[in-house]
Every structure is written in structure tokens, then in C-alpha cells.
């Protein structure tokens, strides 16, 4: 275990911090109340480094690294909020908003949406890119939940929660590129899939793509904080 307690000292945003070997930049930053924006990352799920919002600068390297997967090393100097990073984050958010149909005013998650909050935090005031306005389905075949593909940002939290925590793996991604889409089983109605109705996917969804039918028209906050607890309990078995 001596490897795990080995202490590294590094600098994040001019602040000297200490970390354990094997920790990610994101973990260390959050322990020290340094905010790095994330969307696809969720405590308790595996990290995929896909949303690119947590990219940070490392001194001595021109390459930006995803803080959710990059591990710390002794003497590392990390910048999490340079002008360059802010510009990229804004453009990435623009790309997300223009990709599908994110109309906050009529969205069930309005006021509780991580994408919406992120845009406010990052100071995104308008989208320069042309909206793609794709025609996408809303699948309400499930007795309790609905999937609205118009709001999906393909973070795959639902896929990972279902596969890694619930163990059912009814969600996955089909197609590729701009045509990628989350599906249940053989691209069939959610209601006819082998869904266990546990609702974890809904709780981890950062936007209004997955929602509880009974909450339509009312406040729809989500509570994904149960994941680390479940992992801990599972390890204890």
C-alpha cells in the first residue's frame, strides 16, 4: 500500500496542493475547491474523457489534457482557467447547443439542467454556429420514464450507470459521428426493452433527455449522488 500513500506536490492555478499517487487532476482540484467544469464525468462512474470541458493546460506541454483521466505527477503545474481554455469551453458549449434542440424555456429540466448551468457559468451569451435542428424522436413507451433525444448530449452517463452500477446494460450508443444516438436493446422502444425500471439513468442524466413522467410540469431536480455510495457498499460485500 505504500504506493498509494506516496504524496505528490503540484501546483494548480498557482496554488500549491498535495495529492496521492494515482489521483486525477480533477480529484485533486475538487479536494482543494478548485472548480473544473465537467459534463460526462460523474463521481461513481468510469471516466471517458469525452466532453472535453475539463481540459487543462500543463506547463511544458502544448497538449491539453482531460483532468478527469490525467493523473498527477510531482512538480506538475496545471492551469485550469486560462483565456485559451475559456474560449474552447465556450465553443464546445456552442457546439452542444447547436447540435440538437435545446430549448430551455420548454424543457422539463429548466432550472436544473447541467448544460444550462454550465453555459451560465462559462458566460455563454449567444451561439454563433448555425443550429442543426435535427428531427428527433421522443420515446414515451416506458411506463415511468421518457427519453427525448432532442435534449441528449451523448455524455453516456446513462449507458455507464446502467452497465456499471445497475448491471443491466440496456443502454448503449448506436451509429457514429453526428448520427450517434443512445438506444435501448436492439434500438427498440424503451418500454419493450429489458429495462429494470431502476431509474438510475434518469437520475444521472445531466439534461432533460431522460426524465420521470410523473415530474412533468413540476420541478425536476436529479440526484445522482447515490453512485459512490453504491460502489462503496458493493466493495464491502
Amino acid at each position: 500500500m505504500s504506493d498509494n500513500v506516496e504524496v505528490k506536490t503540484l501546483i494548480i492555478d498557482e496554488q500549491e496542493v498535495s495529492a496521492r499517487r494515482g489521483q486525477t487532476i480533477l480529484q485533486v482540484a475538487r479536494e482543494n475547491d478548485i472548480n473544473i467544469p465537467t459534463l460526462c464525468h460523474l463521481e461513481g462512474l468510469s471516466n471517458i474523457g469525452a466532453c472535453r470541458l475539463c481540459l487543462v493546460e500543463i506547463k511544458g506541454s502544448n497538449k491539453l489534457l482531460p483532468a478527469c483521466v490525467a493523473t498527477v505527477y510531482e512538480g506538475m503545474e496545471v492551469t485550469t482557467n486560462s483565456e485559451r481554455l475559456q474560449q474552447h469551453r465556450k465553443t464546445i458549449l456552442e457546439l452542444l447547443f447547436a447540435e440538437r434542440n435545446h430549448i430551455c424555456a420548454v424543457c422539463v429540466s429548466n432550472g436544473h439542467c447541467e448544460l444550462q448551468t454550465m453555459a451560465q457559468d462559462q458566460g455563454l451569451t449567444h451561439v454563433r454556429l448555425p443550429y442543426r435542428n435535427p428531427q428527433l424522436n421522443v420515446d414515451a413507451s416506458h411506463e415511468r420514464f421518457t427519453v427525448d433525444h432532442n435534449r441528449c448530449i451523448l455524455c453516456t452517463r446513462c449507458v455507464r450507470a446502467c452497465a456499471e452500477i445497475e448491471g443491466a446494460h440496456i443502454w448503449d450508443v448506436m451509429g457514429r459521428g453526428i448520427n450517434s444516438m443512445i438506444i435501448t436493446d436492439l434500438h427498440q422502444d424503451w418500454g419493450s426493452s429489458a429495462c429494470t425500471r431502476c431509474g438510475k439513468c434518469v437520475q444521472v442524466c445531466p439534461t432533460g433527455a431522460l426524465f420521470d413522467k410523473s415530474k412533468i410540469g413540476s420541478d425536476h431536480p436529479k440526484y445522482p449522488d447515490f453512485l459512490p455510495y453504491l460502489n462503496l457498499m458493493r466493495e464491502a460485500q
Partner: protein
Amino acid sequence: MSAFTPPPLPSDDKRWKIVNGTMRKNGFARHALIETLHTVQSSFGYLDDDAITFVARSLRVPLSQAYGVVTFYHYFSLKPPGKHTLTVCAGTACYIKGADKLIATAEKRLGIPQGQTTSDGKISLMVARCVGACSRAPVALSDGEVAGEMTGEQMLEQLERWAVE
């Protein structure tokens, strides 16, 4: 943990035995998914829901994951191919030498967009990324047979021959 029993073959069609053979050769390991899907496609010409379900259940791969794999790779087809297939190469060398015009001509003649099959099931029109015959661009394949320096006329002649069959 109970021992895993693979599902029965979907029918007594002998081709399922070939599919099963690929999986057995790989010890029914999950990583044999793509290999097995290749065998299904070369045996049946395409992959339908029954085939994907059979393979997924046999290899203990979640259905959604198997479907995700099938739709990720352009080589796999969910629909049966036409009796004949015209494939126009759209690699860079072919594009520079007018492959886009060939594709447009074929689409117009057949009345279908690329990637589709005519309603009578006779001809499929496909576009390839690059078949590696760049030195004879533009290239088209008639039922897999490579023909280089393809002209619109030659291509239409081939389509006519198939159409009157």
C-alpha cells in the same frame, strides 16, 4: 453461478452452423463479436434482429452493445442487399477524377440515393471509402469486380444489363 448455456440455433438453416463455428473457434469469447458478425454477413448477406440477438446471446454481449457495434461499422448492413451491387469508389483519387459525378449519374438512373436498393430488389448502389485501386481512378465495382477508368456511359451500360435481366 450456474453454467452458461448458449441459445439454440435460430433455425435449421445450415448457415447458422457456420456462424456457430466461428464462435466455437473463439471459445464463445466476447471479443469474437465482430468476427462472428462478419460470418453472419458473409453467410446471409446482412444482419437482422434475430441474427444479432442470437450472436449477442451466444457471446453474452448485451443486445444494446451488439447493436451499437453493428451500426458503428459501415461494412455491416441491416438490410438485405439487392441482386446486384454497384459500388462507386469515393476515395480522394477517384473524387479528383469525377467519382461524385458517377455517383450522381447512378442515383439519377436508379432513382435511389446511395446506400439504398431499388424497390424491385434488383440493384444496390453503394459508395466505398477507397478500394485501393487509386491508380486507375475513378473506380467502380460491379458485384465486387473492379473496373478502372470508369465512365458514366460504361456504368449506365452495366446498370442497363442488370435492369433487363
